[in-house]
């Protein structure tokens, strides 16, 4: 280790690494489970943890909304195609919540300082940081676009609520893509994408 980040104790750092790993393993397990009770428990647990980390339950809910919408569309398409809905939409939400918690808990600064530059682990940490940044872009853009929508409509379910929701999600995809593209361009100029 060259230098150490922050003022956190080694024990705390180790606990955060273990917590993140447990959550990641849980996310992988949830991805292959089809029992809906288990999936719902994972979603409730993930939401509660996100609420603690964000300091607000409504913020945790808001940042999960795009994934919930995506899962709902997925369920709708399944129902239209076969008149039945699998556990895939629930799994999607559960995996997202658990992975988001794992990424939030993981001690990124300490890990980055501890790995040897140029090593495979360094590249892996960098890759994970890229993913984390993309997730943050998606979260921040979803917050902004939903905020803009809520300012534009006076009644939650008044005329145009669904159209505005669809437009907000479409705008979210466009904005996230354009920000992700700029981020990729900036990093490619720094030589990190090869």
């Amino acid at each position, binding site marked *: 280790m060259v230098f150490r980040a922050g003022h956190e104790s080694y024990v705390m750092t180790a606990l955060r690494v273990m917590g993140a790993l447990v959550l990641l393993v849980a996310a992988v397990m949830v991805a292959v489970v089809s029992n809906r009770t288990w999936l719902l428990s994972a979603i409730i647990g993930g939401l509660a943890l996100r609420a603690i980390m964000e300091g607000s339950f409504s913020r945790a809910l808001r940042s999960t909304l795009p994934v919930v919408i995506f899962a709902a569309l997925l369920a709708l398409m399944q129902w239209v195609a076969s008149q039945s809905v699998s556990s895939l939409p629930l799994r999607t939400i559960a995996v997202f919540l658990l992975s988001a918690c794992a990424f939030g808990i993981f001690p990124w*600064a300490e890990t980055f300082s501890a790995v040897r530059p140029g090593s495979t682990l360094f590249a892996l940490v960098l890759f994970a940081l890229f993913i984390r940044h993309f997730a943050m872009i998606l979260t921040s853009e979803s917050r902004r676009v939903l905020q803009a929508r809520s300012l534009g409509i006076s009644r939650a379910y008044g005329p145009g609520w669904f159209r505005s929701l669809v437009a907000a999600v479409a705008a979210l995809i466009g904005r996230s893509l354009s920000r992700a593209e700029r981020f990729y*361009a900036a990093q490619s100029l720094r030589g*990190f994408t090869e």
Partner: protein
Amino acid sequence: MKPVLEVDNLNYAYDSARRVLSDITFSVGEGECVGIVGANGAGKSTLLWCLLGLLKATGSVRFFGEKLGKQTVGRIGVVFQNPEDQLFMPRLLDDILLPLLNRGLLPQLAHERALAALDKASLREVYERPAAQLSLGERKRAAIAAALAGAPELLLLDEPTAELDGRSVRRVAESLRTLTMSRLIASHDLEFLRGLCHRTLVLAGGKIIAQGASQEILGQRVLLEQAGLI
């Protein structure tokens, strides 16, 4: 003055109906600071992206006489309009360190250089924090520090003063004024460019409609009106 960057007959269109840049020709000399001024949508950012090869334009872009490509682009420092596009690490220090480590610098040396860059940008006291927790002015200065840490021979800046308050603009201007390498700054902040750039190009409708000494160009009211700047 030896040319660092030579742009000759650069053209770019998003599609056949939307031509964004036409016949762009200019150069940036060694140690020279050149401003690109233009209204919103004039093509300033697109021009920078084309220069860096992020958008495929026709024409020629030469850096120290060599065709600009993957080998040479690493010698250019870039500051994007939105600093969040550049800063993503868990600590500001890591954002500055990363390109240095990536180039194979010894960690201790990279650490010293990164801290020096943060000192220069007056950001030493916030280096443990992630960029997302800093003010916009601090983030802009951090993005400049990250670009400068790699000791570039040319610095490209896209709207470095966008959305900044007066004090932050002054601090950014101060940090850029002391630099000795060539600089190309795209902005629509006329006062900022007047105080900083030796020469200014006026971009309107994707074309350079005028270029010359900043004091002279930025004093031409009719020209600036024509370019939609006032």
